[in-house]
């Protein structure tokens, strides 16, 4: 294919560039009714309009030229940008643990193309070392790019591939596993791996960043260092998410893959353990346990890989006065398992009962989780709850809605016997349902109260 010399331009702007033989990366003098503009023509973002040409002017800034004001243009030179992340050989040392880093496409480490603004992911060990040289002080890193998808496009197919790859890597003798992942569905993947990879002898750490690493204040480098430490040196052999503890550059948390949730769209400290405390805190030089029941690292290479998933699973978020057709249509579409995210202690309105009855008759497994995020489903408290259980709705304790969806898909991938499904769903694999909620498992404080303000001012960095 011939090289696109008008990258991203379309319509009016493209016509104009063609008319004056002006290429992207060409140095341009553009006369307009607003005066003369000079600079280098940059590619245009595909989604922007066709009425402007983008120039990088000599001071480094970008500006747009309105095509309606252009009276003439001239290309006075041409210099194409070639931007590459410098690769430096990752220094290998015998006395350090070896960690395998799987890439999924998230931009845990990346560089920005200064001319176009395009994000270029850094991934090979050499690139990573170029970006975060401190990693070499922690462990040896091997990398493997499994796929390149945005976090929101991660799904069952990727979970299965990841689980198998992890199994292979444990066989190969890795001291720890890291998975670079976009943050939006990081906790879905963490839950999936928690079920698909059981009794791992080594840590499996999922890590992401809330600010891409082309920013000086990015959390990516520190998250990577924390994750490397937890994977290479940490003594907890579980599937965990490693992200910022506080929003400050301080320590990271290790969250259990089945109890973690992204709780803020943009904060660095967005991942929180729900209904319990995190397993541990981690810095680049050490790990401090919080939970006493963590599974220890082992020397053996035994692991159970259960890479199953059925996509005939769905979930719906209940709202007041929801119509039964919604549930009917899900059943008609052939879904075999449904997670309801219900109100309060786990309720839906009476209007849905016939639809629940119908689902039960068609052999669809229906489970109840909570919109309140925190707390347990308690369907015995009110009569409505008892009615619903009679209609086959199974309460899932304090299992998080997203985790329930993942688990149901994993269970349905292994059996279609409703009794077996129910039994598997209610038997915890790894803390997705806990027996008790500690008092400090629910900490959502509100500002404005003197003692909270004092805490925020003095301790919450």
């Amino acid at each position: 294919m011939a090289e696109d010399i008008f990258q991203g331009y379309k319509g009016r702007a493209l016509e104009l560039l063609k008319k004056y033989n002006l290429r992207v990366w060409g140095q341009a003098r553009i006369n307009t009714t607003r005066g003369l503009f000079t600079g280098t023509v940059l590619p245009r973002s595909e989604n922007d309009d066709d009425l402007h040409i983008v120039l990088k002017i000599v001071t480094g800034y970008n500006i747009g030229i309105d095509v309606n004001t252009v009276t003439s243009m001239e290309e006075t030179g041409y210099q194409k940008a070639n931007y590459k992340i410098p690769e430096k050989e990752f220094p290998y040392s015998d006395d350090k643990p070896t960690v395998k880093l799987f890439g999924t496409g998230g931009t845990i480490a990346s560089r920005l193309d200064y001319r176009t603004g395009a994000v270029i992911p850094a991934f090979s060990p050499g690139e990573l070392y170029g970006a975060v040289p401190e990693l070499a002080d922690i462990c040896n890193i091997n990398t493997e790019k499994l796929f390149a998808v945005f976090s929101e496009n991660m799904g069952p197919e990727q979970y299965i591939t990841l689980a198998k790859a992890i199994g292979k890597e444990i066989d190969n003798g890795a001291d720890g596993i890291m998975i670079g992942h976009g943050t939006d569905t990081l906790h879905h993947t963490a839950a999936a791996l928690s079920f698909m990879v059981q009794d791992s002898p080594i840590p499996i750490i999922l890590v992401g960043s809330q600010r891409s690493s082309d920013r000086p204040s990015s959390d990516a480098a520190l998250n990577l260092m924390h994750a490397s430490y937890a994977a290479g040196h940490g003594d907890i052999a579980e599937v965990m998410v490693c992200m910022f503890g506080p929003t400050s550059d301080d320590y990271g948390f290790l969250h259990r893959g089945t109890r973690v949730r992204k709780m803020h769209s943009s904060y660095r400290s967005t991942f929180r353990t729900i209904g319990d405390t995190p397993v541990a805190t981690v810095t680049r030089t050490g790990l401090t346990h919080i939970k006493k029941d963590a599974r220890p690292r082992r020397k053996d290479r035994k692991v159970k890989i259960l890479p199953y998933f059925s996509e005939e699973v769905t979930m719906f978020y209940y709202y007041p006065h929801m119509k039964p057709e919604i549930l009917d249509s899900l059943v008609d579409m052939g879904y075999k398992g449904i997670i309801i995210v219900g109100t309060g202690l786990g309720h839906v309105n009476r209007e849905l009962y016939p639809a629940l009855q119908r689902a039960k008759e068609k052999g669809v497994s229906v489970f109840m989780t909570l919109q309140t995020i925190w707390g347990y489903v308690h369907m015995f408290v009110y009569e409505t709850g008892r009615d619903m259980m009679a209609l086959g709705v199974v309460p899932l304790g304090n299992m998080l809605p997203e985790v329930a969806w993942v688990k149901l898909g994993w269970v349905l991938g292994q059996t279609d016997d409703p009794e077996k499904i129910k039994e598997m769903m209610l038997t915890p694999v790894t803390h997705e349902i806990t027996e008790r909620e500690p008092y400090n498992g629910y900490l959502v404080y509100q500002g404005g109260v003197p003692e909270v303000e004092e805490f925020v001012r003095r301790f919450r960095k």
Partner: protein
Amino acid sequence: MKRIDPEKNFLLTRKETGYVDLKDATAEDYRRIGFMSGLEVHQQLKTRKKLFCRCMAGIYHDHDNFDAELIRHMRPTLSELGEYDGTALMEFRTRKQIIYRINNENACTYEVDDTPPFPIDREALEIALEISLLSKLNIVGEVHITRKQYLDGSIPTGFQRTAILGVEGEIQLSGKKVRLIQLSIEEDSCREVSDIGHTRIYKTDRLGMPLIETVTYPDMETPWELAEAAEYIRFLNRSTGKVRTGIGAGREDVNVSCRGGSRVEIKGVAHNSWIPLLSHNEAFRQFALLKIRDKLLKRNNGESTPEISHREITPADRHLITGPVSDAMEKGYRVIAIRMANCRGLLSHFIQPGHMFADEFSNRLKVIACIEKPNMTHSEATEQLFDQPFWKKAADFMNCMENDAVIILWGPDEDIPTAIETVEERLQMAYKGVPNETRKSFPDGTTIFERVLPGSDRMYPDTDSAPIPLTDEYIESLRKDIPVDISERYRQMIDWKIPEDTYRYLLSKNMVPLIENISADYGFDPCYIGRFLGHRYKNLEGKSKPHKNFSHSIIGEMFGFIASKRLDPEIAFPMLKVLYEHPGMRFESVLTTIGYRPATIDEITEPASFLYEKFRQERRSDSEEAGINWLMGQLRKQATGNIPMEDLRERLTMLTEKTNNL
């Protein structure tokens, strides 16, 4: 290594450099050293909200008034050539822990980079475009928000969001046109609370406030031209009436070089009156550094790579453990001696009034290696901290040659590698000339090293913001409302014959439009109004602050009232004094307050004969003039507002003449 008398050497090298005091300097002096200078003028805009979030702008708080603190570290990002930018590397070497103080009243999660930007504040954009039009810039067709990296921590993201609104403009000074490179709109940075060792604290109250930056070409060839340009741009910004005033609302970065020197940026000059001396001293500092370079190269046979060596002074080197060396060791510091090749007579070389070449090293040690002062001493220090033979022993310790000098530095173990590197690097730069850097200014007109000047590879597009188109219709609608040019304002004041000593005040307070309106709407003489504002009002303002509700428009309304009542304008000042403190008072009540009663000239002068008789009886002077003055004093109050004082005097003169002739 023979001993140098540093004080004598300092004066001698000052003379060799050809330094003259600013007050004695002529245009010829600046031609001699090739003075070249440009400006980056920052001006806060008077908007309700901040630029990229919806926090209120202009609410400041004290250092200790904060609701939360958080910690960040800035990591350098690679430039497109795969290199770290000079500043980036330096900032990373400093390994600063940055602490931000947040007050909920004026900062949200955007300020601390936990929320992406909201769309740009339209009010700010509009004001900035108006000023761009006034500056005769070519307005861009589409505004692209760009990220400009700052790794000093002054912005928690590590970059400033900024955008160009226009390029290639000009301003007309009295003697020349000065070209403008560009005008950008940007978010203001944090204010520094402290910077000690490895911890720098900022507060976020000012962060994110809308700011514009007007950048000139380096067209200014003397410090006076530079000051004039700065004043002009300040007046131009203020002429819109939509910019903030007060401390820190307008700040200048001054770029200076001398012939053969380098661009050095003096940051954040808060007062235009400081500009001449700062730029003068900087140009001469560069000139002096070039002299130092020439001497170094000559001594090093033209080679620009000096042989530098360093050696640690350990407890075993007993003969050197005295004075500051032993003090430093007692604190647990490491002590390093550095052989400064060919630097004899240069460490005490003049570079600025009160600053010698050695100070450049000490200041860099503080900033780059984070070692608080005193962090070093040297063989040409004016303060004698050692016994006389010490430096001889130190020179032997370092195997110094005749033309060498010695620096001894100390600091915590973890900072020593950076400290050695910092001194060696600065010495290498001295062989090349003047390092590109930004410098911090002091009221005495001197500057010290602040940061390495950032390279051009620190700009990249803000992927969080969409471009903003500026249509012709929109630009033209803004053009309709832009104020009159500042050069035109100067011309008006000259035409009106307003005294020249008021120009600066009237322009800086944007009062020329007020004069124009009062004179056009109510028929007052513009020269009278000009003097009224430029002398009497200025005087009032110098003595006390007005009530917070007082505004210049009240002065205009007051003159309207005076005209409608056909009062004599002399009543204006007594009225103004009342309104200044009670801006809400009705004008009629103001008249009552100052004791005004309508009266004709006959009524006013009715008691004059009686009074004059009294004066003659008690007179202390025979002069007729004295009598009239005394009478004027007695009757001025009743006359004010009713008749012009000249009329009163004329009538009293007639009266006294009549009495005297009786």
